């Protein structure tokens, strides 16, 4: 398909069609981002009416007390864990529920319910479920025959993993759908041919079908990574960043400092998040664009 020549294009596809979208993008997306680079270097807060430049002070403060490094580390670990769990679960479910029986169809619908629920709501449900005297410990106690009181959301090391598991629980249904769609695009005769050549079911799966799922993997990993780096609701509703700020991802920090009126600190962290995502995202964008060219 050849695009129309530039001269004719002006009449048939006028550039003013871009105006509303780019006006909104400019005002509500690019301009605030630009402001980030300005106000991160000021003392903007709710306590003073004036806003004055302070150079790198905000960064120096956040670096010196270890907050910046801590929040970055927590966010990255959280994002990687979520991407890992969400894809493992989603992929497992897709393989388990691949055949179109009525039971599998029904099960798929059930796994989509959390995707529709508000993440905040999911967080509260798990906060109740994971209390030291909550239902999970009751169930475990019932199986083991002793009383179990594990503080799932009160451990400075493992709670981050638990919250990442909850995040993955909420979104695994979506990953499952995308893996299912990916599995459906692989023609039956490809697997058939492998079986005739003597491959076992296991071999045929990992060496023939799995590589063909590459687009679905790309999409799922990218969306899970980006979604969790921008995460907020689930962490807020389960731990609020605790215990001892061990689950305080960047957005929780931004929300907390903003609430305290420390707008410049919040802006600085917002800029840090922006830069971190931008650095990690360039390879992701390239993959997305390449995929799109193939389509």
């Amino acid at each position, binding site marked *: 398909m050849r*695009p129309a020549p530039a001269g004719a*294009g002006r009449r048939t596809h006028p550039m003013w069609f871009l105006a509303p979208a780019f006006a909104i993008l400019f005002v*509500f997306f690019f301009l*605030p981002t630009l402001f980030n680079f300005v106000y991160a270097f000021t003392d903007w807060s709710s306590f003073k009416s004036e806003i004055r430049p302070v150079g790198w002070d905000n960064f120096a403060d956040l670096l010196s007390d270890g907050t910046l490094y801590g929040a970055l580390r927590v966010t990255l670990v959280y994002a990687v864990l979520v991407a890992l769990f969400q894809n493992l679960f989603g992929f497992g479910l897709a393989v388990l529920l691949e055949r179109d029986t009525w039971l599998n169809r029904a099960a798929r619908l059930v796994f989509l*319910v959390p995707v529709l629920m508000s993440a905040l709501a999911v967080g509260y449900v798990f906060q109740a479920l994971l209390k030291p005297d*909550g*239902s999970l410990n009751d169930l475990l106690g019932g199986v083991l025959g002793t009383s179990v009181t594990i503080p799932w959301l009160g451990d400075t090391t493992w709670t981050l993993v638990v919250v990442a598991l909850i995040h993955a629980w909420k979104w695994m249904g979506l990953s499952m*759908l995308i893996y299912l769609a990916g599995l459906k695009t692989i023609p039956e005769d490809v697997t058939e041919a492998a079986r005739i050549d003597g491959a076992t079911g296991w071999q045929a799966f990992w060496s023939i079908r799995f590589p063909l799922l590459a687009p679905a993997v790309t*999409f799922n990993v990218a969306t899970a990574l980006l979604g969790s780096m921008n995460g907020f609701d689930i962490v807020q509703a389960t731990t609020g960043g605790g215990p001892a700020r061990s689950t305080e991802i960047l957005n929780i920090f931004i929300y907390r400092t903003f609430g305290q009126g420390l707008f410049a600190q919040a802006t600085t962290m917002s800029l840090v998040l922006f830069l971190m995502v931008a650095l990690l995202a360039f390879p992701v*964008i390239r993959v997305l664009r390449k995929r799109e060219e193939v389509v």
Partner: protein
Amino acid sequence: MTRGIAARLRPPAVVALVVLVMGVPLWLVVVTAAKSQGEALSPDLSLPSRWLLWENLARVWEQGDVPRAFLGSVLVVAPSVLLVLTFGSMASWVLARRATRLNAVLYACAISGIVLPPAVVTIVLLLRQLGLAGSAVGMIGVYVGIYLSTVVFFVTGFVRTVPLSIEEAARMDGAGPVRVFFSVILPMLRPVLATATILICLYVWNDVFYAFFVVGGRLDTLPLNLFQVANAGLYLNNWHLIFAYIILMSLPLLVVFAVAQRRIISGITGGAVK
């Protein structure tokens, strides 16, 4: 032989998984929402001694200001989705059809928002300067700004698969660009617009993070009020009210999903993996 056993073990495994992984949390929501405050102090999986589901729903309906929050949510979600789809498709059409160097740059800028996080703190400052702080209009602008990237990305890819000849036929009949776009192109974009609508509704309807910054305390939406109910409720250990609110809030999307599940599922997957 092992295949036979594996195949026979699969249905019970599916049932067990659904019950354990999904059933337990969802059951907890329903039974806790039906309990009295005393019974719900420490939520567990036991049945309520007396079902008070309606009473609790009625209480949060009032306490959580559900009608107003619902209206607030609709007031923000509907215009946001409508605007983001219309403006996004208009831009995508031209970006897809005119392959100039400028448009390649514009396209890259437009889709950068898929990955780059919005600057939530300075948005507040900007809205104050524009006189839109705390208003539905400001909130709508922010959502449109955030999700335009997604729409442009999906729709531009889709427009490229629509043959030019269809447009040209309409143009021969004397239709201008506005007519061509709205009566020829837009109807053809239905599948991809369906995907985008579902995803954006899901995100905006459930969003609480951006809403905190932009309209927190000034406009009620369902997730914002859930946060309020929960903050008050956690303090008083009112789990029955928190869970009753969660049920009320999740119902609209669940009903839509139940009615249109087949189209929604094919919508989501159709756009993502082509």
